[in-house]
């Protein structure tokens, strides 16, 4: 039962990055918020895997991690006004 609450906590941590995404005066803040949300999603998947005892979700968390890396790179290279 404890793991379900922790999974809920991880999801809330992901959603907690939204205020900075809305307010963030500069694109850099919004990119940071997006990066934190990505990490929060990966943590949620790991917790779903732990709660249901299905290790296949751990492979999925690895795929999400690879995609979050690429997405982060895309944001830094293309976000905001061009240099």
């Amino acid at each position, binding site marked *: 039962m404890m793991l379900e609450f*922790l999974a809920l906590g991880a999801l809330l941590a992901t959603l907690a*990055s939204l205020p900075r995404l809305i307010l963030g005066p*500069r694109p*850099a803040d919004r990119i940071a918020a997006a990066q934190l949300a990505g*990490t929060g999603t990966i943590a949620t998947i790991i*917790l779903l895997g732990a709660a249901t005892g299905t290790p296949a979700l751990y492979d999925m968390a690895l795929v999400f991690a690879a995609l979050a890396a690429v997405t982060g790179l895309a944001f830094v290279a293309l976000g905001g006004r061009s240099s």
Partner: protein
Amino acid sequence: MSLVATLLGTAMIAAGVGFLLFAALGLWRLPDTLSRLHALTKADTAGLALVALGAACLSDTPAALLPLGLCALLVAVSGATIGHLIARRLMRRPAA
């Protein structure tokens, strides 16, 4: 599965989720961008590593260690690098 492993795993996961929540709070409340980046990279490295380690403890098959370990390593590396790239970009063009 021994009770100790379960307790240890759950405690680590709780600590990891705590890190994530604190990072989100830091991201929201800290005054300027650079300090917010500081909070962000903590969640990427410590928070997720703890969650992955706890999950590894809870799972009874050792096969789950590889993806979790690789995932924690990848997120730590990408978190640190992207934090650096954001800061570098901020330094060169304060507005963007």
